[in-house]
């Protein structure tokens, strides 16, 4: 008989068990310093294993990262808050539309909005995100118009991609949003390649790679980390750790590693771990990381620590694998509530304005949704011409595709 025995990671609680987040250490806000921009991987341990937090429990910014950030203009913060509320309105309306059979598929990002929202505002025109499907907020924060966004979600003639892609798999080059692939991980390393091109061609731009905690298991995550370490291109390697990969607990992707950020250190990429529900912390660390990359100090990885409050997708029912009330009990709270509290504390916002803003944004989204739905839904389809199937497979349509298109009747 052998002593060897396998282990299988378990979440702290399954359905019908009490929520248990006692394994999650939440350090006080303001503890960690701001490292120099040329932070070396061997000096990054405290940042990769700790948790950078800026807002204390009352919403007051404290500590070195708060000083680094300075007092953000209230207008910028209100813009961030409104973008997150807008994202929630879109999620609500589109989840509903999916339930009504008007579109085939949808994915919400509830609870994670602060990350992409605050990050996007630190980018410059011409920088490129390589987003996952759960980063629509990058588009909202980049002021991408609602018409093409919802058009894509309905696959109708307002869809810039002419119905080719599953809803949510946007592509918006002018808004720094690379075409989203459904195959996990693949784009993480492409972002590194894009960043290498930025450096080789000297355009002064940077790339931002995005991946979920689950997909850090993919080969391409490791390819990206290694390539970034070897060539030192201007890339920010974002890891959104929302604790779940569909039904699979994050421990299955982490194994015995302490944090995802610490994993990057093994490749020689400095890394920081951040409270992803703290809008100010996200703003501060994004500014630092993007500046580091742009100034030529090389790649940096950031683990954004958050919680996927909604279902994985419109095909998923999380009550089958996790306690229903986990999201409410998440120790880092809700990003909208926390930014709201901070703004109210600063005297720049109020409960009434919040309710009003939520209603206005829901109204705006609903209005646009109506107009967009008039261009066709799955119930009443008016997709782009079937010839879109053949256009763009190649720059010049080869003869065999031309024949097939004719065979189809076009």
């Amino acid at each position, binding site marked *: 008989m052998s002593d060897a025995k396998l282990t299988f990671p378990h979440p702290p609680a399954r359905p019908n068990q009490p929520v248990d987040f006692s394994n999650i250490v939440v350090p006080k806000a303001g503890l960690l310093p701001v490292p120099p921009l040329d932070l070396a991987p061997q000096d990054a341990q405290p940042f990769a294993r700790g948790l950078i937090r800026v807002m204390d429990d009352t919403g007051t910014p404290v500590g070195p990262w708060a000083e680094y950030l300075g007092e953000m203009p209230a207008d910028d913060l209100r813009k961030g808050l409104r973008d997150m509320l807008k994202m929630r309105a879109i999620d609500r309306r589109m989840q509903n539309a999916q339930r009504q059979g008007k579109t085939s598929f949808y994915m919400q990002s509830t609870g994670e909005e602060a990350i992409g929202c605050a990050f996007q505002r630190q980018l410059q025109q011409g920088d490129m995100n390589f987003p996952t499907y759960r980063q629509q907020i990058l588009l909202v924060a980049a002021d991408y118009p609602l018409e093409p966004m919802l058009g894509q979600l309905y696959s109708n003639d307002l869809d810039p991609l002419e119905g080719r892609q599953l809803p949510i798999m946007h592509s918006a080059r002018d808004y720094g949003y690379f075409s989203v692939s459904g195959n996990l991980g693949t784009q993480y390393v492409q972002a590194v390649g894009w960043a290498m091109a930025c450096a080789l061609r000297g355009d002064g731009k940077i790339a931002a790679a995005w991946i979920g905690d689950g997909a850090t298991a*993919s080969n391409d995550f490791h390819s990206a980390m290694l390539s970034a370490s070897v060539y030192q291109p201007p890339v920010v390697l974002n890891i959104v750790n929302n604790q779940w990969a569909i039904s699979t607990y994050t421990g299955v992707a982490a194994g015995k590693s302490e944090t995802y950020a610490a994993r990057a250190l093994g490749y020689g990429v400095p890394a920081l771990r951040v409270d992803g529900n703290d809008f100010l912390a996200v703003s501060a660390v994004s500014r630092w990381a993007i500046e580091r990359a742009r100034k030529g100090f090389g790649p940096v990885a950031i683990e954004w620590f958050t919680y996927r409050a909604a279902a994985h997708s419109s095909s998923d029912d999380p009550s089958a694998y996790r306690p229903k009330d986990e999201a409410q009990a998440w120790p880092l709270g809700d990003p909208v509530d926390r930014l709201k509290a901070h703004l109210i504390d600063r005297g720049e916002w109020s409960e009434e304005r919040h309710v009003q803003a939520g209603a206005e944004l829901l109204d705006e989204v609903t209005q646009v949704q109506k107009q967009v739905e008039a261009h066709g839904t799955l119930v009443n389809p008016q997709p782009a011409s079937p010839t879109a199937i053949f256009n763009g497979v190649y720059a010049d349509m080869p003869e065999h595709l031309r024949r097939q298109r004719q065979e189809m009747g076009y």
Partner: protein
Amino acid sequence: MARMTMIEALRSAMDVKLSDDPGVIVFGEDVGYFGGVFRCTAGLQAKYGEERVFDTPINESAIVGLAIGMAAHGMRPCVEIQFADYVYPAYDQITQEAARLRHRSNQQFTCPMVVRMPTGGGIFGGQTHSQSPEALFTHVAGLKVVIPSTPYDAKGLLIAAIEDPDPVIFLEPKRIYNGPFYGDHAGKSVPWSAHPAGEVPEDHYIVPLGRAAIRREGADLTILAYGTMVYVAERAVEQAGIDAEIIDLRTLLPLDLATIVASVEKTGRCVVLHEATRTSGFGAELIAEVQQACFWHLRAPLLRVTGWDAPYPHAQEWDYFPSVSRVVAALAKVMED
């Protein structure tokens, strides 16, 4: 006898094998606690424990690479790839390692492994939930490739695949997981409980690999199909009013050429159907074999109806999916000659 969906039949196959062979082990993304995104492994972890049925990280090459190691050691892994569209990170492990292990080690090491994966379109899944990659596997020496079209076959073939001494790629046409699909997406869906092939024994049985099934006997024309296209063929034959023989290949490799040749020698006409893209698709292989074996019996050129040579679209799915009307047109054309 029990009525089962294809999902339940597949689960029953794994259940039977998990209980009768301690070497059988099941794993993949979300297959453990949750039981798979299509629920094929639901309840199996609770019944057999985590050492037999477990969740993996999202790394397909690890899933298959681990399975190869276990299989070489003497276990019988039956692993799941969440969608065939996500098998590509494992393509190296499957085609360069699993497929050749027996041969290159001169039988010192073997790989009795099954890689299950939902395949095909028809669910509005867009380009990353709709692909039909069977030809990428039939092109590789050392692999067997199976694709059932009924719950009864799904269970019997999966048990045969798990018991097979070599690696088997087991493609599950997801559009017919819950009932046959006759190509009419707007029509009412038919559950397996209303179809005779939904009758599935609870116990162990096999449907041998390498044998096709004649789904409809006919004299005038032979249709070669597999997976979802078997039902599209049935509807097309009804609509066209042609006395066609429909052969469900069930196993693409090894191919049951004898059944195919006997049919085409009888009918003298043949149409091949698949959802996958046309160029270098499995239809090309079928047509080459039939042409060579049946040339002097043929009365008309062989035709194929396939997906177009383009990425699988989302909104234009029903312009892409080989429709009943396209099949009817092909049948009529072949009958003209």
